[in-house]
């Protein structure tokens, strides 16, 4: 087992009052679907308020790995997981852990925009309402705040009662981000959030992700190498269920340690 992200890659000049530990740590994680091993011995540490990109060819396990962090794989039959995943020092695969609580803290944005067939307002308010929050004023405030954060407020503020399905693809995806933000998570998982969007919408979302970094720990799966290099601080390259390399994005894209990483990012395979 290797501590891939070591202190020497850190910029320690910033004087932080409290030295923040890792937000998320995985140790020797293995995932099986029946007989198929989808993830092999992956250990990694993710810093708070950073953007980490998972890259790799289709089927390399990056999405599976991402979905471990909010236990979204639990619904798949035959799914089996070994190893440890800690978020803020809590082992999230302990039996005692409350799934609902975990998922409030670890939000997720999916590949295709998937707003509920409800109004824009109801979409964002959903996460609050299922928590049993009834205070209308509080809900309205949080909805507005989330929409502002997701850079969608100005476009929808006069049409909050319109169906979310009337929005464009890019707006829908920002709505899904707003919906996730409304629950006030600390980690946001993004599973190829721009793969179904046009370049302009993509640029907007990337900008948004960049802004969110100051408050959230973001982990993003992407097929798009330019995207990874543009927005992320750290990049993890997966291949056949293994974590091949994990380092600062700049290092991965300019001077990768491993040959396979270099081949992939230069487009020689994948």
């Amino acid at each position, binding site marked *: 087992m290797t501590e891939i992200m070591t202190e020497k890659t850190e910029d320690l000049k910033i004087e932080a009052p409290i030295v923040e530990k890792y937000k998320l740590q995985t140790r020797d994680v293995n995932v099986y679907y029946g007989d198929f091993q989808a993830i092999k011995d992956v250990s990694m540490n993710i810093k708070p308020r950073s953007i980490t990109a998972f890259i790799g060819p289709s089927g390399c396990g990056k999405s599976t790995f991402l979905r471990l962090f*909010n236990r979204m794989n639990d619904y798949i039959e035959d799914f089996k997981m070994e190893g440890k995943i800690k978020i803020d020092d809590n082992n999230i695969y302990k039996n005692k852990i409350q*799934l609902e609580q975990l*998922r409030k803290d670890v939000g*997720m944005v999916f590949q295709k925009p998937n707003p*509920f*067939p409800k109004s824009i307002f109801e979409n964002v308010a*959903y996460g609050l309402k*299922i928590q049993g929050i009834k205070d209308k004023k509080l809900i309205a405030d949080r909805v507005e705040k989330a929409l502002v954060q997701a850079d969608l407020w100005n476009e929808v503020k006069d049409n909050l009662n319109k169906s979310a399905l009337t929005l464009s693809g890019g707006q829908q995806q920002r709505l899904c981000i707003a919906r996730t933000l409304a629950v006030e998570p600390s980690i946001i998982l993004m599973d190829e959030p721009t793969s179904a969007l046009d370049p302009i919408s993509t640029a907007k979302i990337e900008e948004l992700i960049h802004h969110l970094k100051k408050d959230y720990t973001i982990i993003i799966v992407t097929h798009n190498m330019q995207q990874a290099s543009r927005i992320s601080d750290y990049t993890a390259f997966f291949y056949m269920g293994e974590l091949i390399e994990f380092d600062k994005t700049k290092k991965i894209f300019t001077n990768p340690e491993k040959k396979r990483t270099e081949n992939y990012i230069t487009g020689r395979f994948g």
Partner: protein
Amino acid sequence: MRKIKELIIEKSLLSSALVTIAVTVGIILVLAIEAFLFFKEVSFFDFLTDTQWTPLFTEKHYGILPLLSGTLLTTFIAISVALPIGLSISIYLSEYAPRSFRKTIKPLLELLAAVPSVVYGFFALVVVTPYLQQFMPSLSGFNSLSAGIVMGIMIIPFVSSLSEDALFAVPKALREASYGMGATRLQTAFKVVVPAASSGIIVSIILAISRAIGETMIVAIAAGQQPRLTLDPTVPVETITAYIVQVSLGDVQHGSLEYRTIFAAGITLFVFTFLLNTVSFRIRKKYREKYE
């Protein structure tokens, strides 16, 4: 040669389609003509407002209301049974049950609809009614309660199977979005999946109602044959369908006014089921658009 063959096949396919349409049109025409002749002798106003239906008695009344109330009462009881049970089954199967269980249980459930309705009628009369009489001594031997309950059991698969299809068709992405925000399975089922499938569920309910209104054997056997304007489920009533059976089996003279009452009753039934089918067709069309 090949072209001629193609042509023959095409035309024969077309003609079989035309036959179906012709038969439907024919039925509607006969219904309409006979009903028209009926309404030449009986005023339409009396037909709709008279509270008695006694075309076979010496003192004749031609008010459809007693038959209509019998039909609606048994249908209402049936839906009250089928809706909660059918919907629970569909939500369980689509949201909770393991896939293999769902695959086995669904065809089994649909068997309920495959049992001949005469069997259900008999069951209502000789099993359900005597059983209910243990708790409700005033329950008469023929009543709309047991007929309605048994009819409700029969139409459970209409509700459960079609609703389940609608629930299952809700994209997985919506469920994941809901789980991803910390919703439980129950919350996801009722706040996301059921609303998203609501049009499909409504269609299933309408089709079940339509089936219940048209159901004949159960009510003819177990609900009695006494046209009575009542909402009391414990007394004998007669539905439109049961009346049609009663008269068709009797020795009413062809072409007489008594004979034409069948068509007046029949067209009433037709109007109801036609309206229900139209509504469900509209909803289904809208619903298809939503997912495409």
